[in-house]
């Protein structure tokens, strides 16, 4: 029998007990090295055993519970998707590039972890699997070809009860099943399953029998020429990966999700749990949002509140405002559990640095949603943070989720207006190196935090904010010319139309989301010309630099702009 790299058979690759809390197990199947780890939610991940960055084994990495961190340069990958969530060398950027490690199918059953080289076969229990309390024996690695190991196992069966050979390098006699894991052409692991919980003498006896068998098979194998090892191909990863420009996600690229749960979290805040119809949702980073396509045709942005590696559903919070323009109103009033909705892939314009010595998170009202996600990520990585949550009198949204955190979470409920400023000032304190503040909430509160932080010595680069909306009155009266340097096009922007709209009219696909200068999705590099900034996404020094702009609301003061599009 020759082993094939494309063999679709499910083989056991570990015992369940091999994956204790926060451990990374090193395995191998059909020549491919695997990093196997159990997340805190119980999910078992089977990934190619190398970091996409420099190829270092992920099996020496750190299991942080929801993410796996590479030991070399600290790249983090999400539970389930294996998508990259953080690159420490680019702490201020979201790795929105589609960096995703190779995953393999996995099932946990009968005390064993099963995997396969590909998805071609559905997992099938072995005959007689059901109805027993299986106990996995100590795995026995053998430096010999899988078929030789299987033959030797068959010889253990008593003469009057020959072994029952089953597909997938499996055999069975008495009350024991033996599976041979084909590690490579010349290497195997024997994984035995007993149909009942054994006493310790039985365990020792089985171990002794298999050890002797191993020694015998290895002596025979040493006399034969070693088989040629399998030679799996590795997909090349670009060396420029970490500096590549972001791949724009076209606006039309949506996913369908089911409203799995809808509940009232606090007065005026409704929680929605959005689940995929099968599998898991895409990787997201803390601070990320999705576009939600509403039944009435409107598109609205909502932050993901989830913690690391939590991809079985996204949870968002929606505030029903009386002044709602029909966005949250339709969600709250007409969307029910079981309904299908379209969402965009997650996008992150509010990325969280994880190299701060102190992180201050300040939330006002429904602005808690991105900060809850950030707090959960910092929590799992045991990083230092303080979360200040300002709400009006009454109930507090996501209270139980916040109380489950280990970090410092301070509720400021129903503070009189004059106390809010001083509370923010003392929450921030004086700035020192590598401190960062993240704030999300009503515009007035953001302005207070930004001004207070600035007056207490916080540099602009340490103040990170996300506005819900742009309250400014947009002046779109100017008319000017835009040259798109990469596309070699020149467009005339008349008054009353945005740069974004004119680019779309001319057939260009450009990413955008809120289209009111708040979310940051349409951020564009400016090469020449003077920008008339009208957004609330860029900070003042970014605006002064005149090197970037939001094409959805901002315009030109000069007659001509040259953009890097």
């Amino acid at each position, binding site marked *: 029998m020759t082993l094939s790299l494309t063999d679709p058979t499910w083989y056991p690759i*570990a015992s369940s*007990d*091999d994956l*204790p*809390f*926060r*451990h990374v*197990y*090193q*395995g*191998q199947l059909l020549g491919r*090295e695997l990093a196997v780890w159990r997340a805190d939610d119980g999910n078992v991940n089977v990934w190619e055993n190398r970091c996409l960055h420099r190829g270092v084994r992920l*099996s*020496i990495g*750190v*299991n*942080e519970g929801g993410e796996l*961190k590479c*030991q070399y340069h600290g790249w983090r990958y999400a539970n389930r998707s294996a998508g990259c969530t953080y690159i420490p060398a680019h702490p201020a950027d979201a790795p929105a590039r589609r960096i995703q490690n190779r995953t393999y199918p996995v099932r946990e059953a009968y005390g064993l972890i099963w995997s396969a080289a590909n998805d071609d076969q559905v997992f099938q229990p072995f005959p007689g699997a059901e109805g027993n309390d299986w106990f996995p024996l*100590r*795995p026995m*690695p053998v430096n010999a070809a899988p078929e030789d190991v299987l033959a030797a196992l068959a010889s253990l069966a008593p003469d009057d009860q020959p072994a029952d050979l089953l597909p997938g390098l499996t055999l069975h006699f008495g009350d024991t099943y033996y599976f041979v894991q084909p590690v490579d052409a010349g290497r195997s*692991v024997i994984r035995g399953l007993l149909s009942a919980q054994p006493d*310790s003498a039985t*365990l*020792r006896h089985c*171990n002794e029998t298999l*050890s002797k068998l191993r020694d015998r098979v290895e002596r025979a194998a040493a006399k034969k020429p070693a088989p040629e090892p399998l030679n799996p191909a590795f997909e090349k990863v670009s060396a420029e990966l970490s500096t590549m420009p972001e791949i724009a996600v076209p606006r039309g690229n949506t996913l369908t999700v089911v409203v799995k749960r809808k509940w009232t979290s606090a007065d005026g805040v409704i929680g929605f749990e959005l689940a995929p119809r099968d599998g898991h949702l895409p990787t997201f980073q803390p601070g990320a949002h999705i576009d939600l396509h509403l039944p009435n045709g409107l598109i609205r942005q909502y932050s993901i509140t989830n913690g690391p590696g939590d991809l079985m559903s996204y949870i968002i919070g929606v505030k029903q405002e009386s002044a709602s323009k029909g966005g949250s109103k339709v969600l709250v009033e007409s969307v029910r559990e079981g309904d299908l909705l379209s969402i965009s892939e997650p996008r992150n314009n509010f990325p969280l640095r994880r190299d701060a010595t102190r992180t201050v998170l300040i939330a006002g009202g429904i602005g808690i949603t991105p900060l809850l996600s950030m707090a959960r990520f910092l929590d799992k990585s*045991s990083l230092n943070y303080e979360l200040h949550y300002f709400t009006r009198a009454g109930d507090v949204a996501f209270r139980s989720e916040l109380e489950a955190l280990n970090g410092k979470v301070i509720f400021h409920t129903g503070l009189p207006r004059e106390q809010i400023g001083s509370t923010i000032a003392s929450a921030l304190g004086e700035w020192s190196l590598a401190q960062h503040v993240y704030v999300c909430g009503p515009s007035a509160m953001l302005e207070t935090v930004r001004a207070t932080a600035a007056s207490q010595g916080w540099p602009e680069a340490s103040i990170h904010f996300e506005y819900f909306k742009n309250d400014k009155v947009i002046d779109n009266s100017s008319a000017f010319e835009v040259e798109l340097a990469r596309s070699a096009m020149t467009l005339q922007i008349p008054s009353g139309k945005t740069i974004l709209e004119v680019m779309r009219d001319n057939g260009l696909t450009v990413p955008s989301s809120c289209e009111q200068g708040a979310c940051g999705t349409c951020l564009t590099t400016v090469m020449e010309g003077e920008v008339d900034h009208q957004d609330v996404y860029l900070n003042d020094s970014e605006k002064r630099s005149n090197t970037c702009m939001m094409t959805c609301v901002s315009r030109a003061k000069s007659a001509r702009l040259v953009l890097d599009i």
Partner: protein
Amino acid sequence: MAITLYDFELSGNCYKLRLLMSALKLRYDIVPVDFYPGRQHKADWFLRMNPFGQLPVLKDDDLILSDSGAILAYLARKYDEASLWFPDDPAVTAEILRWHSVADDITATSSAARLALGYGYDFDIAKTQKGAHRIFRLMDEHLWFGEREGRDWLCSPAHPTTADIACFPYVMLSEEGGVGREDYPALRRWTDRVRRIPGFVVMSGIFPAGRAL
């Protein structure tokens, strides 16, 4: 009390002492010895302290000690007030010394393979690697049954002893000698536990484990 460690940064045997002294919160001075490429451990001044010409050497006031296992026992007996790292119980002492001896075998195999591959030593690489695998198989078996019996460490006490420290470094550094540990899952789990001992410090080639709270 003034402790001085004659130390080579990349030596697993010196690291054993740094590890225990960190766990015991002991202060000490370091005198670097250029083992490679300077071969200072064969210099006259060093041989006067340890005629065997081996690292580490530890000076405690006027007392000069050599051999990592012996020094581990000394430090634990002298400075561990709780008597956990090297308990008095005769049976446990025998257990620990048994594993100190395994640690020397690991040095003779796994560390020798590393010296051959990385430091130009003329050792039989295939033989030392094979020897390391033989020991690791036995350790994996010992530790797997230990987990079933509620024993997390090499010896029977419910806490680590100098046996764990003595065996740890050249297990962790085995890949530098071309000896993988993929076939020894219980041994790998034990290295996670050692790396979570309060006061654990790293050395070049040995990464910390994540928290498991």
